[in-house]
């Protein structure tokens, strides 16, 4: 407290949070220097779940490598697959049929809601409230059921393929999605009652982990972590892909910059996703769900970069092609990696109990960070 934060002195305690610790959902390892209850330094140690997906993809064909990316950010696997499919399509210059585009956007938004639901429950659990976790799972499960029916899996779908989607929508899809939206609208006020409006929760979140807009950009934050600081960075708005430019939705911005602002961004983003789904669910155009592509895909020599907005922020897929059937080099710019780098900056000087609030609102998914 009395010395400068960020330096270690004699009486400091160094504790390891993780790789196995209830606060880190996954195998994140944080070495925390503490002075009493005050955090002086947070140093992340990564790599416990590093599978070197980038290297793996170098030996997989352009159809095959998409399935691996489901395992990066497993909570928004649709969006990861979408980014890869978009990047390959950019190289192939394939036009995606309108039906496939709508299906992709619908799936993305459902995934976004599911991801935010899990984040909401897990973050409340980090802060000591167990009940919201189960309530969040009720809504999330119904999304997973929809996914299971159409894509055949609940978490790692591998539904997007270059040129469209793998299978057509299930006949029950529209009905189920409408049911889900009704459930969601019936239950949304509970989120406020249980967590958002709660005085303890607000005190835990407000003025905790302040991140200025300038720092957010400098640290490469994206998604809700940056939008909570008032940085407009929604890729769906600024570099629209698929049919996002034709849809009506707002980019959620909060100016607080603290954990509560980041929390509110995600809560409001869920409602925007519902809005997008509402616009699309009755207007799915008829037609093909997949464009005709060759059996063996070959990207022309060159470099292709796509940016999409996952539930956590900006995912970039950078493919360097030498003209062969496999990518020469592939780089995934994952949102979690950059968002994690800001943790040390915002955590310094706050209490140990705040760390979980900050980690919660940055929404760290460890396989996304480690890749």
């Amino acid at each position, binding site marked *: 407290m009395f010395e400068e934060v960020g330096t270690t002195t004699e009486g400091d*305690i160094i*504790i390891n949070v993780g790789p196995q*610790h*209830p*606060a880190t959902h996954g195998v994140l390892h944080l070495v925390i220097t503490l002075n009493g*209850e005050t955090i002086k330094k947070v140093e992340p140690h990564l790599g416990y779940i590093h599978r070197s997906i980038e290297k793996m993809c170098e030996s997989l064909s352009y159809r095959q490598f998409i399935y691996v990316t489901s395992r990066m950010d497993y909570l928004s696997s649709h969006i990861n697959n979408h980014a890869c499919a978009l990047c390959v399509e950019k190289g192939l210059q394939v036009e995606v049929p309108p039906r496939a585009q709508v299906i992709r956007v619908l799936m993305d938004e459902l995934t976004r809601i599911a991801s935010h639901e899990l984040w909401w429950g897990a973050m*409340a*659990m*980090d*802060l*000591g*409230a*167990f*009940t919201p*976790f*189960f*309530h969040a799972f*009720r809504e999330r499960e119904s999304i997973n059921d929809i996914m299971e029916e159409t894509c055949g899996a609940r978490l790692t779908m591998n539904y997007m393929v270059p040129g469209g989607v793998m299978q057509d929508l299930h006949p029950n899809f529209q009905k189920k999605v409408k049911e889900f939206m009704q459930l969601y609208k019936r239950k949304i006020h509970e989120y406020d009652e*249980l*967590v958002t409006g*709660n005085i*303890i*929760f607000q*005190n*835990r979140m407000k003025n905790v982990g302040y991140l200025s807009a300038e720092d957010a950009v400098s640290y490469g934050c994206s998604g809700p972590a940056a939008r909570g600081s008032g940085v407009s960075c929604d890729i769906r708005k600024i570099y629209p892909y698929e049919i996002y430019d034709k849809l009506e939705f707002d980019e959620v911005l909060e100016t607080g910059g603290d954990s509560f602002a980041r929390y509110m961004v995600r809560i409001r983003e869920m409602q925007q996703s519902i809005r997008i789904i509402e616009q699309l669910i009755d207007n799915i155009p008829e037609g093909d769900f997949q464009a005709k592509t060759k059996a063996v895909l070959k990207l022309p020599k060159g470099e292709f970069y796509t940016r999409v907005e996952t539930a956590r922020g900006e995912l970039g897929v950078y493919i360097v092609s030498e003209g062969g059937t496999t990518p020469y080099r592939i780089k995934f710019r994952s949102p979690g990696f950059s968002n994690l780098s800001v943790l040390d900056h915002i955590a310094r000087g706050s*209490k*140990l*109990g*705040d*760390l*979980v609030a900050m980690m919660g609102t940055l929404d760290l998914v460890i396989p996304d960070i480690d890749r």
Partner: protein
Amino acid sequence: MWSFSNIANNLHKWLSETFNPTMTLIIEMVLAGVAVIGLFAALGLVLVIMERKVSAWMQIRLGPNRVGPKGMLQSLADTLKLLVKEGLTPNGADKLLFNLAPFVAMIVAMLLMAPIAFAKDFQLWDLNIGVLYVSAISSIMVISILMAGWASNNKYSLMGAMRSGAQIVSYELSAGLSILAVVVMTGSLQVSDIIHSQADGWWIFKGHIPMVVAFITFIIAVTAETNRAPFDLAEAESELTAGFHTEYSGMKFALFFLAEYVNVFIVCAIGATLFLGGWMPFHIGNWTQFNHVMDYIPSSIWFFGKTFFLIFVIMWFRWTFPRLRIDQLLNLEWKYLLPISMINLLIVTAMAILKWHF
């Protein structure tokens, strides 16, 4: 009538007729000890299953439903598991303190059983400073936690113990002040006197708003004192894994676990005794018919009913609220609860002097 006091009196009579007074005293003490240990075990089992069911229903789950009818024997199975687990002692630990700490926690919880009136005229020891005794002994609880935290040779445990120390020492104050409100009204520290003073109405009804405030303060303070969520900073699992009992396993862990639940029971029993009339039935003014029906319900049922209601409230807190941060926890005590209960005590004193209560 078939009641606890009758059984106790008949037993005493029979023992005095059969043995000499010293022998009688020894046998009675042994019997009391056995009864307390039995109550301990029973409470542990009941409260654990209750907590699990309450949490499950609040979390739209079914809860334990495999062992025994409707899962009622689940906690028995858990106990069995904990019994056969190896009790590890870490290498760098202070062996004596490490092994002593759970027993200190247990003994404190057992000592607290003494002045509680479980039914009409059924009390182990009706000492004349009963309430003072309770608040004094319950402070020893923190020593066992500090012992466990220090002896574990673990940074998480140490921090948990530190937090717990700060927390219990602060919340003793407002718990004490809200108990004082009742003591001021009654004019006695003896538990039986306090109960008898509520024959014509419980303090929470007789004492107007100041008494309700004292009751709420008391409930919040004892929740904090027993390290229950939302004040479970000593064992905040997302920050300190398991706090002061991180290194404990097997039966030693179970003792801490049990002591926590028994403490919850005891503070709720004290709360029920002070504010809700202990074993006194619920009476409404001059509705003689209604009062008569209420009198038929045995006093022990009244006592346990009230206590378990308060336990439910504390569990309800746990499964609804997020955890506080350490500085907010102390803020809540020193900036809100303590001033409120001090002013409240002043008002109560004025009320007691001016006889403003019923």
